[in-house]
């Protein structure tokens, strides 16, 4: 395998697996032919067109929304993590930007706006996911939607009380199990003919995935044995926190690794669930007239 082939292979991963199974071979052939001899990378235009083409196949709306949502969530989580570790007792703009160079107010406001955008973005991400989840009959779609809303409500309340009671781990399990189950349902969809069950589970998973991200932010901000309970009434989001709720949190590298794992899992599941099958195999598998 030449470097060019390897690099083209990386870029082709922008496309979903089902598409690559069908098309990657001939696309690679075309890319290799289009590249000058001795080239190690395909041209910039080709690379760009592959990335955009991959996103298009994966489904424009849900996909394009999910990426900024996941990235923004990660950034906010990171910011809150830094805060939770460094914030002193005094409330001042400088306290909100420990170790940052620049105007503290600007960073604090940016973090506030980022958190707000992230929350608002979660709504279209959720809706796009729900629309995508089940394109069957209206009744089934409604059922899936209601299931997701009910689940989001119940799990949200449970999460609030569990985290406030210091039982964060239970809350995480509560949220993550349906996500994993739905992942399995997706994998074995063909064998699960009970479409209603699959739609309901996927809807639950979708809501959970959104909430995993949500909970993550709070979890990060309040990680550690001495951290104040979350949602205890004196804590808001990000820079808007009333700092009375924070104490110096002690965060170990192991905890950080677990956290990174959660973050990766949440982001990956969001992206997987968001990937729309706008194009189907039978669309690209040309049926020869002969």
């Amino acid at each position: 395998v030449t470097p060019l082939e390897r690099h083209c292979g990386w870029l082709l991963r922008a496309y979903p697996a089902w598409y690559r199974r069908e098309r990657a071979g001939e696309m690679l052939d075309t890319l290799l032919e289009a590249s000058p001899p001795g080239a190690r990378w395909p041209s910039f235009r080709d690379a760009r067109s592959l990335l955009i083409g991959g996103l298009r196949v994966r489904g424009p709306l849900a996909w394009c929304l999910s990426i900024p949502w996941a990235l923004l969530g990660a950034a906010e989580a990171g910011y809150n993590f830094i805060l939770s570790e460094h914030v002193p007792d005094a409330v001042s703009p400088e306290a909100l930007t420990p170790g940052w160079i620049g105007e503290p107010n600007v960073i604090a406001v940016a973090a506030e706006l980022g958190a707000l955008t992230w929350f608002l973005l979660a709504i279209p991400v959720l809706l796009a996911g729900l629309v995508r989840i089940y394109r069957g009959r209206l009744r089934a779609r409604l059922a899936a939607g209601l299931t997701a809303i009910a689940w989001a409500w119940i799990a949200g309340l449970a999460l609030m009380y569990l985290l406030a009671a210091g039982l964060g781990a239970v809350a995480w399990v509560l949220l993550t199990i349906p996500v994993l189950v739905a992942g399995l349902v997706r994998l074995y969809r063909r064998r699960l003919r009970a479409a209603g069950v699959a739609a309901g589970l996927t809807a639950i998973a979708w809501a959970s995935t959104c909430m995993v991200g949500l909970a993550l932010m709070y979890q990060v901000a309040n990680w550690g044995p001495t951290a104040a309970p979350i949602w205890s009434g004196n804590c808001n989001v990000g820079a808007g926190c009333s700092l009375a709720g924070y104490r110096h949190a002690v965060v170990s590298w192991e905890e950080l690794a677990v956290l990174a794992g959660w973050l990766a899992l949440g982001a990956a599941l969001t992206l997987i669930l968001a990937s729309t099958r706008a194009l189907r195999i039978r669309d690209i598998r040309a049926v020869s007239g002969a």
Partner: protein
Amino acid sequence: MREPTYFVLASLLDGPLHGYAIIQRAEHLSGGRVTLATGTLYTALDRLTAEGLVVLVSEEIVNGRARRSYGLTPSGAGALRAEAERMAEAARLVTNRSHRLKARGPAREASPA
């Protein structure tokens, strides 16, 4: 119909071609104006195949990889012809007028009353 789509269809007029041959042919036909990137070509082929304008004609293995040739379907040829006629019609609006303008000389500006 967008220009790349038009030239992808036009490149298949003389017979089926495979991916890179379509890129080359489209570039040649458009006088170098339309250089399709690989991703753009396959996005167009996906759509045209789904719409039934283009069809997979043959598949061979070259260097261990599938090389597929695509051809125009009758409805693809029809859509291409309709688009060409539409553009010719639109072009006539301008070309006819410019002939007349040339014959009459440049248009005079309206004189103040």
